[in-house]
């Protein structure tokens, strides 16, 4: 099967999902208690202003019409305006998203550097103290609340040792060195959770592959164990792990919310929290919409990577 056909099929399957995603996100506003126009007006209590909001957001129209108008604007790239600073939500997202993407990329690198080698070692030493310890560490990484881990790292590295800054962010084009020092702790915090997931999946995939006939054959041919693990087993075990990485990247966006709040990083996640506290519902909806869109895209990317890596799918 060709890649284009595979992608086209996946996109067609995704369309109903995307439709329901848009309905769910639009419905969030309907959860607002009482009159939505009053809730959107926030502190503004002038009836004329509230009537203006009602007209602006078409709240006097039937729900289906409201959805149609909202969806039309979304498809044209109009996610509304921030109630707080009157800037288009799209513009805010464009400025904040790259910061979060940088954080997510650095976190994923840390997760891969820790998770994959640990998973390989754990599988190769199954049942030994190394395996038990690696499993315990991975489970700890999954169990530790990351906002608490961030606070503890600030206490140690910023407060006691003074090695790293406690908070803040410097863009890489301004000062790469300072950018890396500001991004290191938050990346480690986010990366540890994903490292635990990657480790467990790598271990599981490696154990499955190490039990395969061709691995048994390689061992029977007296191939050194190091080559059996790294050359024969790892290559096949990495296929599902790499596709998992694409999906986990999407989950990093979720974890970034708290991490950015603790380390005062002006990213996507902090934008969501600020939107919540300022009752800037257009911002909240915009962030949720973009998160969902990115997650769907990354899942599609994971499917494409799996298709490219697995020759059995290409030949189907």
């Amino acid at each position, binding site marked *: 099967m060709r890649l284009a056909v595979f992608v086209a099929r996946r996109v067609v399957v995704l369309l109903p999902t995307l439709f329901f995603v848009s309905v769910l996100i639009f419905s969030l506003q309907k959860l607002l208690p009482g009159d939505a126009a009053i809730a959107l007006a926030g502190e503004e209590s002038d009836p004329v202003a509230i009537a203006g909001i009602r007209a602006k957001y078409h709240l006097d129209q039937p729900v289906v019409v409201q959805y149609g108008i909202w969806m039309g604007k979304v498809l044209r790239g109009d996610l509304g305006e921030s109630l707080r600073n009157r800037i288009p939500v799209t513009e805010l997202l464009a400025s904040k998203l790259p910061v979060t993407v940088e954080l997510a990329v650095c976190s994923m690198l840390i997760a891969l550097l820790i998770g994959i080698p640990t998973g390989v070692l754990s599988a190769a030493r199954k049942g030994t103290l190394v395996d038990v310890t690696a499993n315990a560490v991975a489970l700890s990484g999954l169990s530790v609340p990351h906002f608490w881990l961030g606070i503890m790292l600030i206490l140690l590295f910023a407060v006691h040792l003074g090695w790293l800054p406690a908070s803040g962010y410097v863009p890489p084009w301004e000062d790469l060195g300072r950018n890396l020092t500001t991004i290191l702790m938050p990346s480690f915090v986010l990366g540890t959770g994903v490292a635990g997931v990657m480790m467990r999946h790598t271990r599981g995939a490696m154990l499955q592959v190490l039990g395969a006939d061709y691995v048994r054959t390689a061992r029977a041919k007296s191939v050194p164990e190091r080559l059996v693990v790294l050359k024969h087993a790892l290559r096949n075990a990495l296929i599902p792990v790499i596709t998992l990485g694409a999906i986990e990247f999407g989950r990093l966006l979720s974890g970034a*919310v708290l991490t950015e709040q603790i380390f005062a990083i002006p990213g996507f996640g902090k934008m969501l929290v600020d939107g919540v506290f300022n009752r800037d519902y257009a911002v909240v909806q915009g962030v949720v919409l973009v998160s969902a869109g990115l997650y769907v895209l990354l899942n599609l990317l994971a499917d494409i990577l799996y298709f490219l890596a697995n020759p059995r799918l290409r030949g189907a």
Partner: protein
Amino acid sequence: MSQPGVVLAMPSVAETPRPSLVRRLFRRSPALIAMAVVAAFVIIAVGAPHVAPYDPIKQDFRAIRKAPSEAYRLGTDEVGRDVLSRLIWGARASLLAGVIPVSIALIVSIPLGLLSGCTGGWLDGLIMRITDAMLAIPFLIVAIALAAFLGPSLTNAMIAIGIAALPTFLRLARGTALAITTEEYIESARSLGCSRARIAVRHVLPNIVPPLLIQSSLTAAAAIIAEASLSFLGLGQQPPAPSWGSMLNAAQRYLVQAPWMAIYPGLMIFGIVMSLNVLGDALRDALDPKQG
């Protein structure tokens, strides 16, 4: 050569009965420790009024940010409240956060999952597309957005977390139900004239419980972290009511002067979440027919 008319009796193979789930679970020492921790957590949460040494919301401005001592075992916070008492009472919010969202997810997912898995067709397609849509939005972002629109409170936080956890349970219930409906004993039941409803309740439902049990343990752990996260952001348990998450929020401002305010709530969250994850893993191993 056998004599005609003589039937050779096959020697009977004595079958070793499989130990019960509880015994299979008790064989594993990490699972035993995890169960003990969870049991202690529940006892402390339920017995908070009798266990906590002080009133968790009573402020004492003469004891602001006191280090751990004889009088205050784990120190005091920024308004002189005993940290140990607030940790004990905070366990209640976490216990509710572990139980209520999972219950919401189970109550909704079991009937919908049975309906989707056993009926199939357009209804199954519709339920799955909605589930996929909910799964497309990252868990914590769903919970934050819902809590934001519903309003900040522990109740709304638990509803938000329950809704966010629902699609995973629904997919699991539906997938398991779908697999079971292809079994031969289901086919036999149909042939005997059993209605779909009877098949779903008598035959399918008992078999979807084990994987949902495993998921419940893992989701309870995730829900406790989610509640702590929402409370940390100010969207969950509202002050002055104690919650481990809101304690960490306050602790941020006093990291230098009072680090104990940050250390203990996090350790409590870590302890209970780790235990629930270990329990979930042990349940998965115990329910795996190839193991135990």
